[in-house]
């Protein structure tokens, strides 16, 4: 009798978990921080002019060892391979535009810095196989995506490198929204590209049966996401970093040692979908031009790697001493005023530099300073939007304050202990403390709030790179 009862209970619990999976999970993120920055983009979409130059930079990839396939003077089409990563040699990195290779720029020790293309006025595309992903086998699909360069839009955890197509993941995750400061609006940037997004999502399902599409309770309204078919839709709520894929994976199906998951973003899926339905590697995307120094802040339709002059437009920036960032203020890359949009970036932020020393800045009430602590009076002004500059507001020190990172780090991981394990190069401790679940971006808020001004993203990046390269080395040995 009791056995019977146990069976019933077991059945009930098992079926209820299954049911929950089908519906997806509801996850409340409580720890985190929405930095109230001034400079959000208005929801107006404009087309950028065709940029004169476009560049692809190895810096945008994790621990890349580039093998260059073109020379200065070569003519390329959109979709022509420019280089590949020796760590992942199947995957081509292709030209986003047609034109002439004007520079293969190398820096110190001949390290490749960028490949620059003088873009044609009208892009001509290399033709690829057209077809619904449902009609391709998994192998054909992988082959097509790798050949065309679109595979780069599928990345993996651990390491946030481009996915290795030979190793099947346990699941694929797509965050429908970006929660970082001034991030582009999730619903707005896919408008008009719905069918491509759906084709991209279908391709993911072909690659792995388990696909999680994660939406935000307040930020995501489009039925394109909320009613997507055949995927598990998980609903998040709460502040940044609720949109970080690492946080989402941690709460839905965390990565254990040896496991791999893949991930992508809606705009990247649009590019994959367009390749499949139209047969061309077309990296057009919508970029939010944000930041307090931009006069007309809008959404701009442009192309991957475009020179940002063509995106920001002329006479659209206040002042001259500014920081140009490809990406957001927490994780983006510092670029010159005539630099290039990063490979994965869908946002440009321009904020003032902060070279000016502040007289007794540590003592003043600080009505213009933003802090997650309440040591400045601005904590009593909840509606205020801040025009923040790049000043460090202090000097680097040893770890002193505790409990500070934990307030903005919504994972069951001890961030400071993990950082210390990375600094001391203790790999066993790193694994025990959960290094495979994190990426530099997950530490961006820790870095922002840090009293001791410790550059934790850099520490995590180096720690993960060392592990990644070690793993690749050990695989090579197995192959030999």
């Amino acid at each position: 009798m009791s056995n019977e009862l146990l069976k019933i209970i077991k059945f009930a619990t098992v079926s209820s978990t299954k049911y929950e999976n089908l519906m997806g999970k509801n996850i409340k993120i409580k720890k985190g921080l929405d930095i109230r920055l001034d400079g959000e983009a208005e929801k107006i979409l404009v087309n950028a002019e065709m940029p004169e130059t476009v560049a692809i930079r190895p810096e945008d990839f994790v621990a890349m060892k580039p093998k260059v396939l073109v020379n200065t003077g070569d003519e390329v089409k959109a979709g022509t391979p420019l280089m590949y990563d020796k760590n992942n040699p199947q995957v081509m990195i292709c030209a986003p535009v047609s034109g002439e290779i004007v520079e293969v720029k190398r820096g110190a020790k001949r390290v490749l810095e960028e490949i620059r293309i003088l873009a044609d006025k009208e892009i001509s595309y290399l033709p690829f196989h057209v077809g619904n992903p449902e009609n391709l086998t998994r192998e054909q699909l992988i082959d097509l995506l790798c050949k065309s360069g679109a595979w780069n839009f599928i990345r993996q955890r651990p390491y946030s490198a481009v996915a290795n197509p030979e190793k099947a993941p346990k699941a694929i995750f797509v965050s429908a929204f970006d929660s970082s400061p001034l991030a582009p609006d999730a619903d707005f940037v896919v408008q008009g590209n719905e069918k491509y997004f759906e084709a991209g999502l279908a391709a993911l399902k072909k690659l792995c049966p388990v696909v999680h599409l994660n939406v935000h309770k307040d930020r995501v309204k489009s039925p394109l996401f909320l009613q997507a078919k055949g995927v598990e839709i998980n609903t998040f709520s709460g502040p940044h970093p609720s949109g970080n894929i690492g946080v989402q994976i941690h709460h839905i199906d965390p990565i254990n040692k040896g496991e791999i998951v893949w991930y992508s973003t809606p705009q990247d899926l649009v590019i994959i979908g367009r390749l499949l339905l139209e047969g061309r590697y077309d990296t057009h995307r919508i970029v939010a031009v944000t930041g307090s120094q931009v006069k007309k802040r809008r959404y701009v339709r442009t192309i991957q790697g475009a020179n940002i002059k063509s995106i920001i437009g002329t006479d659209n920036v206040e002042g001259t001493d500014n920081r140009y960032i490809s990406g957001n203020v927490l994780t983006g890359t510092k670029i010159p005023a005539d630099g290039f949009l990063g490979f994965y970036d869908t946002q440009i932020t321009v904020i003032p530099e902060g070279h000016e020393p502040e007289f007794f800045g540590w003592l003043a009430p600080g009505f213009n300073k933003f802090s997650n602590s309440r040591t400045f009076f601005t904590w009593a002004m909840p509606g205020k939007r801040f025009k923040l500059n790049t000043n460090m507001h202090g000097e680097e020190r040893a770890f002193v304050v505790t409990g500070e990172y934990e307030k903005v780090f919504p994972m069951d991981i001890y961030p400071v202990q993990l950082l210390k394990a990375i600094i001391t190069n203790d790999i066993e401790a790193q694994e025990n403390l959960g290094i495979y679940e994190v990426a530099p971006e997950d530490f961006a808020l820790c870095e922002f709030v840090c009293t001791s001004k410790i550059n934790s993203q850099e520490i995590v990046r180096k720690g993960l790179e060392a592990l990644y390269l070690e793993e690749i080395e050990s695989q090579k040995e197995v192959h030999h």
Partner: protein
Amino acid sequence: MMEKLEPHFKEGGKLHKFWPVYDGFATFLFVPGHTTQKGAHIRDGIDLKRTMITVVLAMIPALLFGIYNVGYQHFQAIGQLDSVSTGDIITYGLMKVLPLIIVSYAVGLGVEFGFSIAKSHSINEGFLVSGLLIPLTCPPDMPLWMVAIATVFAVVIGKEVFGGTGMNVLNVALTARAFLFFAYPAYISGDKVWISLGGENAVDGFTGATALAQFTSQGPNITNPVGQPMGFMEGFIGLVPGSIGETSTLAILIGALILGLSGIGSLRIMVSVFAGGYIMATLLNLLSSSFPDNPYLTVPAHLHLVFGGFAFGAVFMATDPVTAAQTAIGKVIYGFLIGAFTIIIRVLNPAYPEGMMLSILFMNVAAPLIDYYVVQANIKRRLKRVTVKAA
């Protein structure tokens, strides 16, 4: 002006050796115009200077009250309380307290500057807080040279040998106090030192015993120095004999409010210390009928919390982030045990009517162990995830 001076201290300049001192002053006057080069492009407005100055600010109510109380206790003891003005009371207090603060800061910062030059690292802000904590934990008549020696000991042995602020195991200010306590016990314990008589004669019936000392012999029925009965409110307000900053629970709680609201001090630790003390004292009360020889057992829990250094230790010493437990759960355990051990030392060890200092120092040493087990639990949770899946 700073720009003009800077070249002398830069690499190759005549005074390059003194760069840490220059840098210390320059960054004291100006938050430097350094911009972000790696990682996040914007940073929180807070830095270690701001953190430390917030703690100093939180100590100001206890300091001001302490200054007043030193004078108050003096004039009360010599029977002139009714004939002097508030100004006289404050003046007397200032004369006693200011020299202690000046000596503590001058000596401590001197040692820090010396170490910065010798090891060419930048000057750390930690002593801004320690420098005020040390005098606040002293009795008003503490000889200045003893404070100087204790400060040198605390900064060198307590902090710099470990690598400076952030690396020390023991709370620096408590290291100084422990040094005084064991090296010069006659000046920091007993019932002669807590009230500054200033060479005058005390009134008849005067006793200099603190509340805690009286608990040892007569349980909760205690009096102030001139024989009037004292209870919870007297201890809470704090016009009682004791170390300079420790007497007023009210002033200390204002500090706790500043620390808690600003997010600088761990409320988790403070509340846990009070809870640990309250629960342990209540438990010991239950034993009082079985051991009638120890009147301290009869002291009710709420009196424990407002007399002696309990509140001061809980708010300003136990919360030192460097020497406390670092994990959230660890902080609760750490604070609770500080409170509990304090009461155990007070009640069960007849040699020490006060246990706060020893209890915190002991838990400073135990804190890494607590964190170790908390982190191990996290690691086990992570490993369990895999085995559950495999099953």
